């Protein structure tokens, strides 16, 4: 219950940060880096909170999934923050990283590609234990059969 509660608190904080990011534009009359940082924090926190809410069953702790969620939070926060704060001024002489200037590489490879090599693997590796086991499925099938029986005998919900 504690982990779910933390995830909901995370969602409240994330939503507030995103609303504040938009509100800052109206208050200050233009988009600023402060607003962008609030949005980055809001997006990272919301993504991790939603994943936690979905992945953790009631009463369970995060366990090994904590690595996945810390990873996502770090990739988004660090990646976007570097993109915001690293100095501009790329030109033809800029040293390329895997074919892209460093700030673009952070966005494309760091945020757009790196999670593909990590998250699906963690999901698959923890699937039996944390997502759906044979026993879970048996219980669900029994509930489905019970519901079908209720419908057949004229019961309704």
């Amino acid at each position, binding site marked *: 219950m504690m982990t779910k509660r933390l995830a909901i608190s995370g969602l409240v904080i994330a939503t507030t940060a995103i609303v504040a990011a938009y509100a800052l534009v109206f208050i200050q009359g233009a988009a600023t880096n402060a607003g962008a940082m609030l949005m980055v924090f809001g997006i990272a926190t919301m993504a991790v909170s939603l994943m936690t809410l979905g992945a953790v069953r*009631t009463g369970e702790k995060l366990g090994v999934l904590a690595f996945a969620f810390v990873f*996502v939070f770090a990739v988004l926060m660090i990646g976007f923050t570097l993109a*915001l704060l690293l100095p501009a001024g790329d030109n033809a002489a800029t040293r390329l990283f895997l074919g892209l200037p460093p700030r673009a590489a952070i966005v494309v490879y760091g945020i757009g590609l790196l999670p593909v090599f990590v998250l*699906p693997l963690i999901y*698959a590796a923890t699937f039996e234990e944390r*997502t*759906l086991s044979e026993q879970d499925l048996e219980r669900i099938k029994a509930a489905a059969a019970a519901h079908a029986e209720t419908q057949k005998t004229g019961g309704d919900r």
Partner: protein
Amino acid sequence: MIPVNALLQTAALPTLTQPVIVGVAVGYFVIVALIGAWATRRTRTAKDFFVAGKGIGLIPLTLATMSATLSGFAFIGGPGLMYSLGLGAMFIILPAAITNTMSAWVLAKRMRLLGEVRGLITIPDALRVRFRSPAAQGLAAVAILIAVVGYMATNLLALGLVIDAIFGTGLGWGIWIGMGIILGYSVAGGIMAGIYTDVFQGSLMALSSVLVFMYALKAGGGAGMIRSILDSDPEFFAPWGKLPPLAALSFFFVFGIGSLAQPHVVHKFYMLRDPRRLKWYPMLTSVALMVTLLLFFGVGTATKALVIQGELAPLARPDDATPTFLLRFTPVLLSALVFSGVAAAIMSTVNSFMSIAAAALTHDIPMSIGRRIKDELKWGRIFTVVISIIAAFVAQASGTLVAFLGIFGWGLFASTMVPALAIGLNWKGATREGAIASISLGLVSTLVLETLGYMRVFSLPTGVTVSGISLALSLMVFLAVSWATRGGRGSAIDADVSMVMDT
């Protein structure tokens, strides 16, 4: 601020009436028709029609999800946006690295199991059983209908443009011919036909995207392509491209979090035969999407470099990037495959929209007012025709109205359904009142703000989007109202639904 039209295909494509392109396109449509005919023979019940008999495997699920997610925008509008905005355009597709696993954790298992326990066939169905609320089901169905008509109209318009460019039919006939072809297999075979044509269409999209990406690297000159752009237009490769950071991040927010509530995509979770096969769903879908989106980045970047290098004249319109590049720098057979791939992307998306809209009219809205339609299969087919004809007429009203109708589709789905579906299925503290309040707010705020913006009553500052604001407000209202009404009658959850939420 990005003009509405930048995200949509509304301008004519260059003429493509070449024998090879026409031949491949005809061959493509014949294959689609044959698959549709085969699937039609397997469609006998409403369950077959709306959820493919809940009997599809993981690979069809993956390819169908990918095909439904990507419309023609990924092949035409996306590369054009990349050409004009630089890296900023990538923020529409960057979230895909995270969203597939996120949706697997947040939605896939719970929806599939809920479908197993209660025999659900639609997304509003899930909201009804979770919140014991026909009103939530009805409101969600209304939101789906409004969004789908606009979305379908923009996709039919894009399909009309592609058919006109290939066959020279004229736009009006292009729209009706395209709609007729999709309608042919959708009415007869429902989502069953859609899924199996998606397997063919998705494979075609992925294959053509990889091949075009390789040609783009070759034509642009590899690393030289990047250096020539950096030399002449360094902003192109700035982290946010030519967008302000907040605007790019707004894209990431709406397209990332909003992906959790795209009904034409997430309702496919009901269709998987064996829920334990979900284990590999995020990996396969992520890889399929990444591969298919190579064209988005490759063609947009290569075209920019080729224009800078003087190999291509500056484009009259950004949407010309893909056709111009293909016709100049790839073999005609590959061009033909890609143009068929564009049609495939559009058709697979439209088929999914037809299915969810017909289900909303046949199943969800009657149920929300306490009625059941007896022959859902027959009426599903009739409503598929009705919705398609309405969308085709709307598509013919070409111009900014169509663009306006299409643009809020994604935002409307996101703001009305992310809170109740993504949070509601995973948090027992969510209440019926919270769900109804957030769906209503999402519906009203998106419609009112988008309409006022379209009528130029006001304009939002750069970086702020209606879809972003509506989604954030809808989330906030859902959490606040659920908290305020906790412990009341709207908090009750049926035992079997509670068991699914605990699993």
